[in-house]
C-alpha cells in the first residue's frame, strides 16, 4: 500500500519564541550565530546559563514563582511565540489552542527537592504543592494552564529528538482539526544533579568548549534555552493575515540500538522525511544538524546525512551543513527547536551561520560550514540523533518561499 503523508495539508509556523544566552528573539539569536558568537565558555564550563533571566519580563502569569526554571523558560518562550503569531486569548478560544511539550528532565529538580524533603523532613513537613509539579508532564501542563489551552496538553520525551516528533504530531493534530493552533515548546535548564551525573559520565567536556563534528571532540556542554513554535493550518494563517515564518513539509523517525547503527537510523528517518515531503535530496538547501561534540553521536549524524543526501554511488552531498550547539550548548529536548529556528532564519536571510568549534572534521565528505554561506533554496532539513538511539528528521520551508 502507499504510505500516507505525515504533513498534509500545509501547516504553517506563524510564531517563534526563543530565550538563549545569546538573545531573546529569533533575530537576535540568529544575528549572534552569524557573528560567530558563542555562549559556551572556553574553560570547560558545564552549563551556558541565561544570565539575569527574569520571567516576569516576558510573561505575567499567576503562580509563576512556584514553577521551576524549566517551566518558567517554557512559559516565556510560549508567550513570545504566541505574541509573534499575534494570538491572544481574545482572538483564539482556549478550546482551539493545544500545547505539545518536548521534555525529558524538565521536572527533575522539583522531583529531587520534593523527594529529598520527604526523606529529611517527613511527609507532614514537606510542601505537598510540589508533588504535582514533580511529574514529567508538569512543565507542559503548566504552559497549557498559563495560556488556557484547552484543546490538548501532552509531553513527548526523547532526550534530543522529541521536539521534532512534537512538531510532526502537532501538525497532524492541527490538520485533523483537534486545534486551530498548537504551541510546540521546550525548555532546558538541567538540574545540578543531572549536570553532575553527565559530567561524571564523561558527556561534558572537562577542558574546552564543544568541538562539533570535529576529530578532536571530547564532550559537550549544556546550555539553557526556551523555544516555542506556533503551528496553524497555512490556509487559516493566510485567512487571518498572519505572517508566516515557515512551513512544516515532512517528517521521519527511526531507531537503532547502538551508536554504531545510529547513522543508519538517521538515514532512514531522513529518507522518510523526504518521502513525506515528496522531495528529492537535491531540493534540500541546508542541513541544521544536532551535533554537539560527542564523537560517536556526531559521527553517526554525519554518516546518516551523507548516506541520505548523497547523490548516489558514494558521491558526497553538496548541501551545506550547519550546527549550532558549539555556540549554544546541548539543550537536550530544546535542541531541535533551536536548530529549526536556525533553519528558518537561514532560509529567510538566505545565508547560514558557520559551525562554531569545528576545525578538523571527523567524517569527511560533508560540506560543513566553517564560514557563513549563502543558502540557495527554499527548504532545510533538521536532524536529531538522541542519546537513546531515537533519530528524527524534519523538513521545513521558509515563510516567504515555501508553499502557501
Amino acid at each position: 500500500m502507499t504510505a500516507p503523508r505525515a504533513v498534509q495539508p500545509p501547516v504553517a509556523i506563524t510564531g517563534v519564541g526563543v530565550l538563549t544566552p545569546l538573545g531573546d528573539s529569533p533575530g537576535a539569536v540568529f544575528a549572534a550565530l552569524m557573528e560567530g558568537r558563542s555562549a559556551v565558555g572556553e574553560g570547560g564550563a558545564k552549563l551556558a546559563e541565561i544570565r539575569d533571566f527574569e520571567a516576569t519580563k516576558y510573561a505575567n502569569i499567576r503562580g509563576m514563582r512556584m514553577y521551576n526554571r524549566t517551566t518558567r523558560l517554557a512559559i516565556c518562550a510560549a508567550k513570545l511565540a504566541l505574541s509573534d503569531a499575534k494570538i491572544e486569548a481574545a482572538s483564539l478560544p482556549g478550546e482551539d489552542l493545544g500545547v505539545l511539550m518536548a521534555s525529558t528532565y524538565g521536572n527533575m529538580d522539583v522531583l529531587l527537592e520534593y523527594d529529598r524533603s520527604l526523606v529529611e523532613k517527613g511527609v507532614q513537613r514537606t510542601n505537598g504543592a510540589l508533588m504535582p509539579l514533580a511529574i514529567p508532564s508538569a512543565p507542559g501542563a503548566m504552559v497549557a494552564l498559563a495560556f488556557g489551552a484547552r484543546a490538548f496538553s501532552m509531553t513527548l520525551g526523547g532526550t534530543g529528538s522529541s521536539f521534532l516528533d512534537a512538531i510532526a504530531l502537532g501538525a497532524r493534530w492541527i490538520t485533523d482539526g483537534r486545534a486551530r493552533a498548537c504551541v510546540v515548546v521546550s525548555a532546558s535548564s538541567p538540574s545540578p544533579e543531572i549536570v553532575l551525573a553527565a559530567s561524571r559520565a564523561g558527556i561534558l567536556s572537562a577542558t574546552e568548549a564543544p568541538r562539533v563534528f570535529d576529530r578532536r571532540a571530547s564532550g559537550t556542554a549544556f546550555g539553557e534555552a526556551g523555544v516555542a513554535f506556533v503551528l496553524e493550518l497555512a490556509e487559516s494563517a493566510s485567512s487571518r493575515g498572519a505572517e508566516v515564518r515557515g512551513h512544516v513539509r515532512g517528517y521521519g523517525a527511526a531507531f537503532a540500538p547502538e551508536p554504531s547503527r545510529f547513522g543508519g537510523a538517521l538515514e532512514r528517518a531522513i529518507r522518510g522525511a523526504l518521502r513525506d515531503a515528496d522531495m528529492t535530496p537535491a531540493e534540500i538547501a541546508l542541513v541544521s544538524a544536532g551535533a554537539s561534540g560527542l564523537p560517536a553521536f556526531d559521527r553517526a549524524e554525519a554518516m546518516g546525512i551523507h548516506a541520505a543526501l548523497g547523490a548516489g554511488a558514494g558521491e558526497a552531498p553538496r548541501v551545506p551543513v550547519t550546527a549550532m550547539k558549539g555556540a549554544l550548548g546541548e539543550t537536550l529536548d530544546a535542541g531541535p527547536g533551536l536548530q529549526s529556528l536556525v533553519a528558518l532564519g537561514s532560509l529567510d536571510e538566505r545565508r547560514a551561520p558557520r559551525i562554531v568549534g569545528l576545525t578538523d572534521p571527523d567524517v569527511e565528505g560533508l560540506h560543513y560550514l566553517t564560514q557563513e554561506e549563502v543558502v540557495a533554496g527554499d527548504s532545510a532539513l533538521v536532524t536529531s540523533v538522541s542519546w537513546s538511539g531515537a533519530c528524527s528528521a524534519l523538513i521545513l520551508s521558509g515563510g516567504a518561499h515555501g508553499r502557501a
Partner: protein
Amino acid sequence: MGKRRIVITGCGIVTAAGHELEPFWSSLMRGECMIKPLSTFSVRDFETLFGAEAPLPPEDALPSHVELSGYRARCLTLALAAVRRAVADAGLPGDAASRERTGAVIGTTLGEERQVGDLSDRWSTAGDASVDPGFFARSDNHRLASVAAREHGLGGPVILSAAACSSGNAALATAYDLMQMGAADRMIAGAADTLVRSIYCGFHRMGALSKSVCRPYDKNRDGVAFGEGAGMVVLEDLEDARRRGAHIYAELAGFGVSNDAHHITAPDPSGTGFKRAIQQALATTGTALEAVDYVSAHGTGTVYSDHCEVRALYAVFGDRARTIPMSSIKSMIGHTNGAASAIEAVACALAIQHQAVPPTANLTEQDPECNIDCVPNTGRAANVSTCLNLSAGFGGFNTCTVLRRVS
C-alpha cells in the same frame, strides 16, 4: 487517501490480577479486589499502606544487557514484561524489514522515580558524592521505550509520552497517528508505572489517599488506592493483520483529546473537558451515541473525579448515561497511574473478545449522584461492539480512545 484501519493484534499486561490475559480477565470478571496492605513497598511515616502489587515470575527479571549498576528499575521491568507478552501474543513478524517499520510509544506518569528515591536516600549522608555517572541515563524515562525497542529489534519511531494519568491513552493516540502519518507500519503502545513514594505522600497530603481500597461511585469511598503495572498493545494495519492471519482483538478506531486548563490537580468540576474529549472521539471515529456499548471509566474513587466523569457522561449521552455499562477496574487492580488507561485498553479489547463487561468492585452503597450502571461487583455478559476508554491526568489532559469490534 483515507485513514488506515488500525487494529490490536497483541495484548500484554502486568497487574496485580495477573500477568497473563485469561487469568487477568477471569479475576476482573469475578470482581476480585487485589488491593491489600503492601508487603514489598513501604514509605516512612506510614504504618500501613494499601496498594496492588504486581508480582512477576523470575524470567521477567531485567536482562543482563540493561545497565543497572545495582539500582532499581522496577518500572522498566514492568514495561518490558508487558511488551514481551504483547509481542508474543501478536506473533509479531520477526523479519528485519518488518521490525524496521515497527516503533514504540510508551507512556508513564513518573517512570523510574525510584532512581530518584534511591538518590535522595543517599543524599543526606553523601551529598554530591551520591550522584553517580549512571544517574543521567537511568533517570531518562525514554529508556522504557528504547530498551523495549532494543530487545525486540524495532527500527521505527521510539517515543516516550508523558501525560500524567492519561499517559497510556496518550501513547495509544500517538502511536495511532504515527501509523496514520506513514511513519511506521506497526507500533507497540502502552504504559507502565510502579508504586512510588512521591505519589503516595502527595495524595496523602491532598487528602485523596484511600485508607483501604478503592470504591469508585460508592457513597463511602475515601480516595485513591494505587497499583503498579503495565499494559501494552500491538497495533497494525487491518489489511496486514488479515494477510498474515493474525488474531484481531479490536480496531483502535481513533481518539479524542481535550485539556481542562483549570487547575494543577483538580479537573474542571463541570466535566466539560471530559465531555469535549468524548465528543471529539465520537465525531472523529464516526461513532453514533447509541453505538456505545461500554465505557471504561477513569473512576479513581475520589468524589470530585467521579462526579466530574458522571457529569460528562450525562452531558454527552443524556438519559442514556444511566444505562450504558460504565465500570472502573481500578477498584480491583488499583490506580496504576499512567499505565491505567493502557491496561484498561486491554480490558476493553478483552471485553469485545469475550462479549462481557468487567465490574466495579467494592460497591456497597452507590452514590446517588453517580446514577449510572457501574456494573456492581461482578462482571456480566453483554453485547460489546464499541467501547470508550476514558482517562484524565494531573494538569487536566483528558483522552478517550475508541475500540471497536472487527467483524
